[in-house]
Structure formats: C-alpha cells, structure tokens
C-alpha cells in the first residue's frame, strides 16, 4: 500500500456581519433580481432572467453564470459568453432564518461529490445581520479516501453516481 494522502477538512464555516436588516439579506439570496446583483464571481454576470428560485424544501435553486471578463476568458481558454450553470436543491427553507442547499454530484462538470451549503441568517438587532455559512461535508467522498480505505470509498462513490445520473450541473 502506498502512503495515504492527509485527510481533508470535513467542512468550513464563514461568519459575516452585515449592516442590513435580516429580511433584506434573506431577500438578497432568494429574489432573482437581487441575487443577480452580487452572485458573481468576479468577471461573471448572473442575469436575473437566468435565475430560478423555487423556495421550498425540494425546490431548485438555479443560476447561470456568464463569463464576461476578457482576461479570465483568456486564462480559462474559454470564450466570453460561456455559461456556467450552478444548480442546487433546497433541503432547508426557514424564511428569513435559514437556507440549506445540496448540490448533486456532476461528473460531467468534473464534480463527483455532493456538497451541502447551509446559510444561517441571525438578527443581531439594530438592523444588523450575522450570516453563518457552512459548506461540506466532504469526508465521505473525498477525505474518506484516507480514512476508510480505497475500496469502501469507491463503493460509496459508485452508489452515489448510480443514483445521480442525469441530474443537472452544480457549483
């Protein structure tokens, strides 16, 4: 057996406090015309007519990011105007407190793991909102290579992919 890679972090958490009321922060995530103004990333547009938000558990949260920057396009060796779909499913919806999202594995997009992103919106008083975003877990499909051995991991991957064929692309 060769040396195993070091195990990956299972997830990460980012906390931000915004000078904005919680309802506005939540709306910024859940109304297409607002989301389109910040979703990004840098060098990309997310046109609001390409954002679809079905705000309920099991509903889809779909966006298309369009490459706009000449510089990034050159770096990626892709034409300006290339579209990058970013589709997840809501698994938790508690307006205006919580959004849970799950992306399916998308082998055709080079993504064979399922990721869960959870965004909590805390009212801090005084029209301030604390956003706590956690993203993961990765361990079963990724860090799991180190923790559980190759065979088990690939059996899991196999089952994962078998159940997810034909789903739409994701972050």
């Amino acid at each position, binding site marked *: *057996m060769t*040396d*195993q*890679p*070091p195990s*990956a972090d299972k997830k*990460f958490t*980012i906390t*931000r406090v*915004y*000078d*904005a*009321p919680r*309802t*506005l*922060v*939540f*709306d*910024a995530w*859940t*109304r*297409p015309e*607002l989301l389109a*103004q*910040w*979703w*990004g*990333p*840098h060098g990309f547009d997310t046109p609001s007519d390409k954002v*679809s*938000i*079905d*705000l309920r558990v099991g509903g*889809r949260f779909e966006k298309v*990011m369009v490459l706009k920057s000449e510089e*990034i396009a050159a770096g*990626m060796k892709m034409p300006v105007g290339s579209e*990058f779909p970013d589709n997840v499913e809501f698994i938790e919806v508690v*307006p*205006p407190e919580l959004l849970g999202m799950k992306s399916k594995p998308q*082998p*055709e997009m*080079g993504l*064979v793991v399922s990721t869960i*992103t959870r965004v909590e919106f805390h009212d801090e008083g005084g029209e301030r909102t604390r*956003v706590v*975003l956690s*993203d*993961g877990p990765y361990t079963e499909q*990724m*860090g799991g*290579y*180190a923790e559980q*051995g*190759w*065979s088990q991991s*690939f059996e899991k991957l*196999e089952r994962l*992919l078998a159940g997810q064929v034909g789903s739409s692309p994701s*972050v």
Partner: protein
Amino acid sequence: MVQYSPPLDASFAALADPTRRAIVDRLGRGDAAISALAEGFEMSLTGVMKHVSVLEAAGLVTSEKLGRVRTCRLDPDGFADAERWISKRRAMWEGRLDRLGAFLDAHRNTPTTKGRRAPADRREK
C-alpha cells in the same frame, strides 16, 4: 467554474468513469501490471492502457515499464487535490459574501425591499 483547477477537473473526470474507478480500486489493494488489469477486467490491453493513460494524465496513477511489463500504482498526491478543492470552495464563498456585503451597502440608501418577507416564489421547473 473558476474554482476548479484543470488538474482537479481532470481527476474528477477521470473518476467519473466506472471502469477507471474500478481500476483505482484494484490498485488500492496493490500495484498491478497492465496485463493483470486487463485479465481482471476482461478487457483488451489497449482498452486498459487507454483508461490508465487518462488516470495518469489526471495525476492519480503512475506507471513504470520494466522490460516488457508496465506496472501501475496509485499516486496519492493526486488525491490530496481534494484539499485544494475545498480551499478553493472556501475562497469562492468568501468572494460571494464580500460581494453580498458590497451589494447590501449600496442597497442601504434604496431599500426597496425592506420589510418584505421572502416570497414563496414558485416557478416552473
């Protein structure tokens, strides 16, 4: 998306194929010659070579030819890329939350949505 580096794309794409996952699984139990893999998977030598070359290009497998025998083994460094993937994902979310902050700052003087509850925005799938 920019958060996927090309090598990482290659490793995920390489693993999207069930035969290649089976090859990696097999190599996880020990190094193996191309001919042994071909026999184990009831494939032609050429077929196995094709799969192995994809895995090699993705940095997941290395192979070495000694005499007439090419032996394959896993390259654990390729799998350590998963950690890089997570740090890229973190950077992606950091960037997004920065832009959300900028948006909220800009929006403060024009709070057209203030006080509005999140809509149950049902749409066609």
